[in-house]
């Protein structure tokens, strides 16, 4: 079975996004192997999609009153609340040829890692194209992917005990979007593993399930490694971009 690198770490929102980008650029240059990264946002934070307008995607007054940091991702998709105590984020950085040239297909392949992970925890989940994983129709995970010439970065959430009221306060969803989902608020269209299992799910069991789930989905073995010094160096330089007004408010 192919061997992939496994990195488990944590950081603030700027560093987390910088490190994902650093891994992508290093993989594209052939300097690091295919990698699964599992991490949390410390402190809780918000990320918005590359094409979103800040004012449409988040509730700025709420974020500033609570001191919740936020930044723009290099990936498309929607705004995300990353709960330090209730959400694990994954990143897959891999050669496109090792997943699929077809973008939709590659979402499905990588998201099946989440489906398998959730199954290991005793729940039935399904991939909902383009980029969601749902349990009983409610979203428990969202993913977003960007590509370089030969490499893809897909990162996404798994909400195991997210404070959904805080999530609803942080994010703004257009009325049109909620209407199309047939529900009145974010509160009604997302769920967590803790809610679905009716018991408190821990971060450690989620991480273990994700490692096993991705191993099954990608048919690979993981080897725990530390980031290379080059990636850490590049990430620390990229942090400034993710903190800059120019980047965060570029739309």
């Amino acid at each position: 079975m192919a061997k992939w690198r496994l990195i488990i770490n944590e950081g603030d929102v700027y560093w987390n996004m910088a490190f994902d980008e650093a891994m992508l650029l290093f993989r594209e240059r052939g300097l690091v192997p295919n990698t699964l990264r599992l991490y949390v946002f410390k402190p809780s934070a918000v990320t918005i999609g590359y094409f979103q307008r800040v004012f449409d995607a988040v509730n700025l007054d709420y974020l500033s009153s609570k001191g919740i940091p936020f930044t723009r991702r290099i990936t498309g998709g929607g705004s995300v609340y990353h709960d330090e105590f209730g959400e694990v984020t994954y990143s897959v950085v891999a050669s496109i040829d090792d997943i699929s040239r077809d973008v939709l297909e590659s979402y499905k392949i990588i998201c099946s890692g989440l489906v398998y992970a959730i199954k290991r925890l005793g729940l039935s989940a399904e991939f909902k194209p383009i980029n969601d994983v749902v349990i009983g129709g409610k979203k428990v995970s969202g993913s977003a992917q960007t590509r370089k010439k030969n490499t893809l970065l897909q990162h996404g959430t798994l909400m195991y005990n997210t404070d959904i009221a805080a999530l609803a306060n942080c994010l703004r969803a257009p009325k049109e979007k909620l209407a199309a989902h047939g529900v009145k608020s974010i509160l009604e269209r997302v769920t967590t593993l803790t809610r679905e299992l009716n018991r408190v799910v821990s971060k450690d069991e989620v991480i273990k399930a994700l490692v096993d789930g991705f191993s099954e989905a990608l048919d690979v073995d993981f080897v725990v490694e530390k980031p290379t010094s080059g990636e850490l160096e590049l990430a620390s330089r990229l942090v400034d971009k993710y903190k800059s007004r120019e980047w965060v408010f570029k739309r």
Partner: protein
Amino acid sequence: MARYSFIKKIPGGKTIKIDVDVDDNVIRNIVVSGDFFAYPEERLEELENAIKGKTISSAINIIKSFSDKIILLGVSFDDIIELLNKVLNKVEESN
């Protein structure tokens, strides 16, 4: 100069919004935003820049010419054109 904003939610999909500043039938500024995906991402900004300074009808032709340069997921080029046509209708109403 007048600003127009139109938004479209694609059923079961994503949301797309355009904010357009129009002056004398010419697009001065445009931002295409939303929770969709586009590959490569930077090329959407090239598209926005390509239609600044153009009339709405010539902008629509330029957008069509980008349809084989960008892969859109969750929204389509027809959605962008549909929203621009709404702007065009508003502009014509106000003339």
